[in-house]
């Protein structure tokens, strides 16, 4: 029985991850096929060697720390700002009238194109990057918070009012728990956005951070090293996402058995 459980778990793991191995196999085939220059598509073994080089030289830790610092500060500010703004928009009508069009109109606009403006306002250092990360992450968090708050079941609201709940109790005991799953969806969407924006700003003009490693290595024709840095970014994003899922399971404990895809 125990063996069957282990077997099932192993099968489940393969089922969840086999696509990664398919992609890696395809990459290896293309890399060794001669269809594309092997310099541009180095083999996985070369990328692995370069990755290990980044780890042992201390570059991964040094530049990774800088990248994560920027990403987390911007993301953290967006969490507070986005949840607050989304809540106010959901609860106060004139807030909704004032801000909802800005978010509807501005959501699809690539805010990264404002980076030159941010540079001139905040300088080339960390602040311009953090502010852009904040702005990009603000949108999904605000929108998800707004719709989360709005989507609380009316039956629950009526029931709590009938039981004598005041506005504060209604908010914390009904609206927030109702909105929590949707808010977490917004956070899960915002995390990769934070990393992407951080990397792009570091690629555009920087001499520190994982994005700098990606662009500088490519400039040196060391595409293996560049891809190893990209792999590191992927690993970091994956770990943060899994941590968010674990946090979600803990906070929204009543939904343990019905995890949404996002």
């Amino acid at each position, binding site marked *: 029985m125990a063996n069957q459980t282990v077997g099932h778990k192993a099968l489940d793991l393969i089922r969840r991850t086999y696509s990664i191995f398919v992609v890696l196999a395809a990459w290896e085939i293309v890399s060794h096929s001669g269809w*594309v*220059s092997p*310099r*541009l598509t180095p083999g996985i073994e070369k990328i692995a060697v370069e990755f290990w080089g980044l780890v042992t030289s201390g570059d991964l830790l040094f530049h990774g720390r800088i990248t994560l610092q920027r990403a987390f500060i911007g993301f953290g500010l967006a969490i507070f700002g986005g949840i607050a703004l989304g809540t106010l928009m959901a609860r106060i009508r004139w807030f909704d009238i004032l801000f909802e069009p800005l978010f509807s109109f501005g959501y699809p606009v690539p805010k990264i194109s404002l980076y*030159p403006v941010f*540079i*001139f306002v905040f*300088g*080339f250092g960390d602040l311009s990057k953090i502010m852009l990360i904040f702005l990009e992450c603000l949108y999904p968090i605000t929108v998800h918070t707004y719709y989360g708050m709005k989507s609380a079941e009316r039956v629950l609201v009526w029931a709590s009012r009938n039981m004598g709940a005041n506005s504060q109790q209604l908010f914390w005991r009904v609206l927030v728990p109702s909105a929590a799953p949707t808010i977490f969806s917004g956070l899960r969407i915002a995390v990769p956005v934070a990393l992407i924006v951080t990397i792009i700003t570091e690629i*555009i*003009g*920087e*001499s520190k951070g994982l994005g700098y490693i990606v*662009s*500088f290595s*490519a*400039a*040196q*024709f*060391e595409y293996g090293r560049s891809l190893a840095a990209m792999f590191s970014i992927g690993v970091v994003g994956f770990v943060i996402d899994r941590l968010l899922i674990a946090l979600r399971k803990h906070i929204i404990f009543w939904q343990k058995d019905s995890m949404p895809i996002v």
Partner: protein
Amino acid sequence: MFKNLLLSAATMFAMAGVAYADPVDIRIGAGPSADEQLWLMKLRPDLTPNQGKVYNYKMTMFRGANERFVAYQAGQLDAGSTAMSAALFAASKDIPLTLVAAETYDESDFFSTDYLTLADSKFSKDNLKGATIGLSGFRTSFELYARVAVQKLGLNPERDVNWLIMPLGNIGMALRAGKIDLGVFPTFYSYVENKTGGVKTAFTAFSISGVREEFDVFFSPDFIAKNREVVRAWASDFRNVSNYLNQHQKEARQAIADSKIIEVDPAVYLQIIPPEIKNPTQNGIPQIETLRKLQDLTVSLGFQPKKVDVDKMIDASLIKP
């Protein structure tokens, strides 16, 4: 006599083969500075008698040499312009290329690279610690000479200065806004900033290194092997255009400014014409001695990881008349 007749007949047949075959596409990458000949070959096909007959000239503009090399490695270019130092770096990374023609060199009548600071800046060639340096790309000649300046002061380029990459056209704005402390300015951009005022030259590429940087055109060795006569025809047209540029600076620059192939103020671009043009590049022949001296510099700085056989990098026979 019979041998000579035979040779002439063979040559005629070869040229006829070239002349009557479909034109071969030459896909060439150019940049936003020092590529006047390449731009003119596109803008003034009347100066290139072989274009359209022996070869089709397909020029693509790239922001920097690095982007050109990426396209080259991806098989999207057959040729491109490059600084010799960037060519050495690429060759040291086993990227095959052959230098076929020379466009210009640094501190010539046509091109120079200046490194400017604000007039009241504390930074200079004797003080660069903590400076933020604006460049158009990594592993370019622009970066090389900035590194020379930094390392001459005993500073560590990775830790003691900051590097910022941005388009050439934005470096002036960034300098005046105080976002960078030192910026690289090729000829046109340097002229504009000096004319505007409030800046000073910290050093130039030549003054800081003592080595003359040359700007060349490279071709893929495979392409040359398959299309030698085509490349020779291109080189002949390149020589024509270089002579035209020497003798008709104003008209050439006017054509370039009008075409908007690079974003320049025509009024300024036309003012950069030097009063007397000396022969800039020894008839367009890449100079092996320049390549050797540059390699000594780049290897000594750690800019180039290993030495390469520079004799194999140049094929001057194609450009010689």
